């Protein structure tokens, strides 16, 4: 088994403050994990804001370079990709999906424009019929079709539909890995499941591995194969989703698991009553 993606003792520091009161912020501390290229999986990074999960994602996408340690994708060091052609090749294999679909699309351009330009850039297609065929294929994977999207602007569609289009866009270059940073936090709870189910289907039918970054433990449990929990840059717990989220060991993971409100009025009410009693 060789690795699709391998993180080896990755650290990332930022300098904060000015000339006189400079200090170092350790955003990511000694993170290592490996994703296999033969068994596609959904790998989840859980943590609250400031835990370093987004910085990790940015390093995987090649947008940040690690301070120390290495990230290799298919044997190649991500930080050392220099030439434009190599960069393009890498970007076609690793695609991002962003948090807010309303901000990811320019409100003044039609949505099909993004899909066409992605197809032109990564697949090198020139003929209009070919481009449209590829775009339609990608949209079919997410349960939409080009006919529904053609000529539409982002404000005409719901958040759930836009996020599906964002996923379709990421699928055009036929990537091996998708990095999804909080893809459902801006989407309604009722539409969340459609996006999350889509990730499951992509893993099973297209063999795409997905790095799913979230603070929502209930969807994390629902779709993940493996989970790491990050807290202030450290990985505090890692392993199979059932073990880590079902039976958390670290204090922070326990706190996170207990912060999930159960979708049951009797249980949820009891939790709130206990909190109120604790307030005195």
């Amino acid at each position, binding site marked *: 088994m060789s690795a699709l993606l391998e993180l080896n003792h990755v650290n990332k520091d930022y300098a904060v403050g000015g000339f006189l009161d400079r200090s170092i912020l350790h955003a990511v501390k000694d993170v290592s994990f490996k994703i296999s290229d033969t068994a596609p999986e959904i790998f989840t990074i859980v943590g609250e804001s400031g835990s370093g999960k987004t910085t990790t994602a940015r390093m995987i996408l090649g947008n940040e370079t690690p301070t120390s340690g290495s990230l290799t994708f298919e044997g190649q060091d991500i930080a050392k990709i220099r030439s434009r052609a190599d960069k393009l090749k890498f970007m076609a294999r690793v695609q991002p999906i962003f948090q807010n679909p309303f901000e990811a699309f320019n409100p003044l351009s039609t949505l099909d424009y993004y899909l066409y330009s992605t197809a032109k850039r990564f697949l090198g297609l020139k003929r209009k019929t070919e481009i449209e065929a590829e775009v339609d294929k990608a949209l079919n994977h997410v349960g939409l079709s080009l006919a529904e999207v053609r000529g539409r602007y982002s404000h005409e569609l*719901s*958040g759930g539909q836009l996020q599906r289009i964002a996923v379709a866009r990421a699928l055009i270059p036929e990537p091996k890995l998708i990095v999804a940073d909080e893809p459902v936090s801006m989407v309604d*709870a009722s539409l969340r499941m459609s996006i999350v189910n889509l990730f499951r289907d992509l893993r099973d039918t297209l063999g795409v591995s997905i790095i799913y970054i979230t603070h929502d*433990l209930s969807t994390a*449990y629902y779709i993940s194969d493996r989970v790491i929990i990050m807290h202030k840059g450290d990985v505090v717990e890692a392993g199979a989703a059932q073990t880590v989220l079902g039976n958390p060991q670290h204090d922070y993971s326990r706190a996170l*698991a207990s912060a999930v409100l159960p*979708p049951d009025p009797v249980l949820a009410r009891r939790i*709130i009553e206990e*909190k109120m009693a*604790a307030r005195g």
Partner: protein
Amino acid sequence: MLSVVEKTPLSVDAAPVLKVEGLKAYYQMNYFGVRREVRAVDDVTLTIKRNEIYGIAGESSSGKSSLIKTIAGAITPPLRVVEGSVKFDFGGKVLDVYGEPERMKKARWQHLSYIMQGSMNVLNPVRKVKHAFHDFAFEHMGLSERAFRERVEKHLQRIGLDPRVLESFPHQLSGGMRQRLTIALATVCEPDFIIADEPTTALDVLVQQDVLALIKDIQRRMGASIIFVTHDMTVHAAIADRIGIVYAGRLVEEGPTLDVFRQPQHPYTAHLIASLPRLGDKTRRSALPGKPPNLAEPPSGCRFHPRCPLAIDKCKTDNPPLENRLSGRVACWRAGEVAAA
């Protein structure tokens, strides 16, 4: 002691504090001679009792925020009230929100307050927090500067905030603290009625439960009523006494929280509850097919019929009325036929 205790008659059976009757509020636009009408609130009737927490659930663009804004009397064109009324009863004379603008202005903050969405954006970033309290509440309380300051400090302590936050700027505080501050702002005058728009959506998971406990705690101590909006059903489960489900501008189901969760009568409600993921459960949850309807051209008959698994021919032509059923009300031709998952 605090004046709250004498102020509020704590009887649930008393006259409802809020009565909304046949309320219709539309966004009416007129561009280049083309009239466009978006029916964001379409014939909503509901009452809220004293001492009650009422939750409004629904997906985005269902009109739930428009409904709550209309109730607060905080609407601006193109959103207009076309029909119906919103009446508050704070003891004494009934206040008609859209009939008496002058009395409404006085009642605001003293009887009626608003916890806005996105705690980050409510406070002015270039002024200290104390100015926000002064701007919002000073005029309504009729106290001297010193007494006002003392009252605010006492109130902050009760909410679990150090009074020193008054001297800080918003960027020096965490998201959870700012949300607590907006709650403090909305409750410092001890209002009878609180309107909250997505009070916990922008917060980190770890502080969500604390903020919910805080809201419920304040509500109980002051004997106020709360109406709040969120798409997160788990929040409704945690604090709402009754839930109203809004779909495409209409109230489709209403009832006590426990009954709505245990025995949803409307297929849309049943779907909302069945699709919730639970820790410890990996079985596949189905998502609702289709997309939310366009409120400028809503579907005929029952607005849910294009996405409804139980739809029959009647649903396509006739709009079901909201009728009493079991402990609540439901608008569905096939009410109660859906099995809770």
